[in-house]
């Protein structure tokens, strides 16, 4: 008896401290180390030469690539998340309905979610290849184009394709989150609204969509974080190039570390990145009035 009481006095610690320990060791410590590094003068071998205050941040702000990259990151994150949701809503609606082969279609949707993003991006890189790619062949055969297109040749076109691929890999997860939301809406609610004679679209706008809000919010926040931090798509398909013309802040930070070997500046970029994602999330939750829903 007494031994059980003793166990209780320890409270939550025996249950939660091992998980906290791993999180501190591998997430919070690196975060601390990163922020600290952004104030250090690090030479090319990675050795610290002491504190330099905000000098790394000054170097970063003088980096001519910073402003265009920041703007592009905002466009990238917002357009991928918005397009993903706009596509996932109808897709989820279709996969929620009954039709022959639905199970197989759901399996197909799982594939881009389960497959490595690096490998999926590599396949898209090959499909879009300017000489041997199958997309060129299809468009040529259909007579839509007269000669091969270099899809990843100029910055604007490349960026559009990067967004397409990012949406492609984000839709499956988002669709499943919405599907989960749809199942929580009882069949009786749906049937009742049909009886009332509301048209399909009215029904969707007035009844289904508001009930999907919680699922949608979670899906959007997770997508926001993933898309902002997304690295492999850009890295595999354009390495942020030509030049820095398709970089986001995430790939730029990586380039500054491993190409320019300027670890201090890169840490400053990464620290700012974390500030931005925090800002994004706070703004998003503000706009969607998360608290009012609680």
């Amino acid at each position, binding site marked *: 008896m007494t031994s059980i009481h003793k166990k209780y006095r320890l*409270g*939550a610690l025996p249950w*939660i401290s*091992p*998980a*906290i320990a*791993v*999180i501190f*060791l*591998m*997430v919070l410590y*690196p*975060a601390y*180390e990163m*922020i600290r590094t952004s104030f250090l003068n690090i030479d090319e071998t*990675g050795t610290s030469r002491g504190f330099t205050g905000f000098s790394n941040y000054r170097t970063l702000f003088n980096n001519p690539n910073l402003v265009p990259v920041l703007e592009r990151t905002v466009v990238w994150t917002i357009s991928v998340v918005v397009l993903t949701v706009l596509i996932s809503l109808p*897709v989820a609606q*279709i*996969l929620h*309905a*009954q*039709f*022959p*082969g639905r199970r*197989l279609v759901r399996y*197909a*949707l*799982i594939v881009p979610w*389960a*497959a*490595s993003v*690096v*490998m999926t991006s*590599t*396949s*898209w890189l*090959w*499909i879009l290849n300017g*000489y*041997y*790619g*199958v997309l060129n*062949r299809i468009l040529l055969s259909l007579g839509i184009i007269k000669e091969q297109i270099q899809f990843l040749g100029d910055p604007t076109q490349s960026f559009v394709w990067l967004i397409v691929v990012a949406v*492609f890999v984000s839709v499956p997860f988002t669709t499943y989150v919405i*599907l*989960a939301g749809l*199942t*929580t809406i009882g069949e009786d609610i749906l049937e009742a609204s049909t009886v009332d004679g509301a048209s399909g679209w009215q029904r969707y706008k007035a009844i289904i969509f508001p009930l999907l809000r*919680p*699922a949608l919010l979670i899906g959007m926040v997770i997508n926001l974080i993933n898309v902002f*931090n997304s*690295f*492999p798509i850009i890295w595999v398909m354009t390495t942020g190039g030509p030049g820095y013309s398709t970089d986001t802040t995430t790939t730029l*930070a*990586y380039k500054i*570390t491993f190409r320019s070997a300027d670890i201090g500046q*890169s*840490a400053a970029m*990464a620290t700012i990145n*974390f500030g931005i994602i925090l800002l994004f999330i706070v703004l998003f939750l503000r706009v969607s009035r998360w608290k009012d829903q609680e």
Partner: protein
Amino acid sequence: MRKKSSMTGRKVTLTISGWIIGLIFLLPYIEMLITSVKSKSEILSIPTTFLPTQWTWSNYVTIWKQLPLAQYLQTSIVVSLSATVLVLLLAIPAAYYVGRNTFKGRNAFLLLVLVTQMFSPTSLIIGIFREVIKFHLVNTWTALILIYAAFNMAFSIWILSSFFASIPIEIEEAAWIDGASRFQALRRVILPIALPGLVTAFIFTFISAWNEFVIALTIESSPAHQPITVGLESLIGMYQVQWQYLFAGSLIAIVPVVILFALIEKWLVSGLTAGSVK
């Protein structure tokens, strides 16, 4: 009661759109498969062929000689499994306690979990890189296992705690009265009921570890410690990419996890529901 399904116009449209959606999401993988069985000369021929003129299945044999594929797969399996087991071992008790009890610091703990969810390994790469060097963990499996476990902990705790919270306390109390300790009750009564949540957490963690790229690319320079995602990159050479081998290898890595994921498809919706209703 469902009416006898008459193929009305609406139903036909629905079916066709459903099938087209399915096909679109398979396209890049179909192209992978087709390219993986083309011969080297056919890949670099213009115009591009839609289907291989010669189905070169021997590419799948050659790639095992071309690359230490077995070694890469071994690393991927060991690292992903260890990380997943570690996550479950640590996340289950934490999620159980959080799902069942109110305690001082509960909100702080949940905030910590939420904050980790906002970090990705990529965004912390510099911090991780410096830590790994400091603790002499470059070119070890340990580093990858710990990192993958840490970054997947939040999601598992989140999904499991809502599962545990949804199980009526009476079931557990009955076990306590029978003389079971809290831990025994968790193991014998709660875990079997929460199985869908456990499987979901297991497979999510496993797949995210299996597919991770940036961290492994950065801290593992020796082939003996590289997982398959990084190992295959060596086929992307400076001058020429060996697409047929690259895609054969990619499919070898993709197929097992797709099957794993398909196995939990029916639980996926209920697993995500538990998370999103919360």
